[in-house]
């Protein structure tokens, strides 16, 4: 998956405006980044990326770039 597509999926997941996220975006600053989003990210990672990141590893991510690294993007 390309970075742009990943960002659009993440924006959809956390109900952020399209184009509002960048790799530098801090997850804690996004209103929609919460426990439901973490579970949604696990579903997305499994169904779209074929990986199974641990919840604690996701919660340890500070920025979108960290999430991308975790997802191997």
């Amino acid at each position: 998956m390309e970075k742009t597509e990943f960002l659009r999926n993440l924006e959809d997941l956390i109900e952020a405006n399209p184009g509002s996220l960048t790799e530098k975006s801090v997850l804690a600053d996004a209103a929609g980044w919460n426990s439901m989003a973490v579970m949604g990210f696990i579903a997305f990672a499994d169904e779209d990326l074929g990986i199974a990141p641990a919840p604690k590893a996701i919660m340890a991510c500070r920025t979108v770039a960290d999430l991308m690294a975790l997802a191997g993007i």
Partner: protein
Amino acid sequence: MIAETARIHPRAQVGKGCQIGEYVVIHENVVIGDCSTIQDHCVLGVKGPRTSAPLVLGRGAIIRSHSVLYEHSSIGPNLETGHHIVIRERSTIGENLRIGNFSDVEGDCVIGDFTRFHGYVHIGKGSKIGNFVWVFSFSNAANDPLPPSDLAVPVTLGDGSVVCLGSILMPGCELGIGAFVTAGSRPSGHVPAGAVVSGAPGRILFHVSRLMDMETGLRHPWMAHFRLVYPDHAQPRLDALLAKIMESSHDYKAIQKGRNRN
């Protein structure tokens, strides 16, 4: 034991071993099963619009103080209520409903077995609620799409579905079996079996088996790990329900994109 201040109509039928508290009023058209407890200040068998049949309470009911139940409803065994609850007329309710303080069930409802409503829950007129459903406090099952009006479009809650704190089920909302509504959500329309719906307006996210406690890793559906609160004879039904929920699988993204939101 019947308190001296209780007023029981001579034609009301009170089963064996019942305890009737102080200032209870039991009207004419009431049948109470054996071994039931009706606490102080309850009123049973109130007349409502177009009522004629009795209020029939199964055995072992525990109705806590200041509750009001109308006539023309049938309620299965082991009903347990909190204080100050209301159940209106023409409702059919299964075994072991538990309904928390200050909740109300409006008329014409059908409610299955082993369903749980916590406190301050409002179940709108005509709602159809399955077995093993959980509705948590301050949730509201609406039924009027254009209030105030006589348009009644009640909700349907499938077996094993869960409605978390402070949610509003919009008129006509249909939760599939095992669907899960997160706290403070406002779902509408059809929510597929096993789907998690969150937010206002409600947004379908993923299958309920994705829901987990981050610390412990405990996962939904809840009946896989929270079933000892039910009696032995309910366990095979929980097994069957769990299997059905786990079989339910949908393309949630496609459903979400195709949905109209209210």
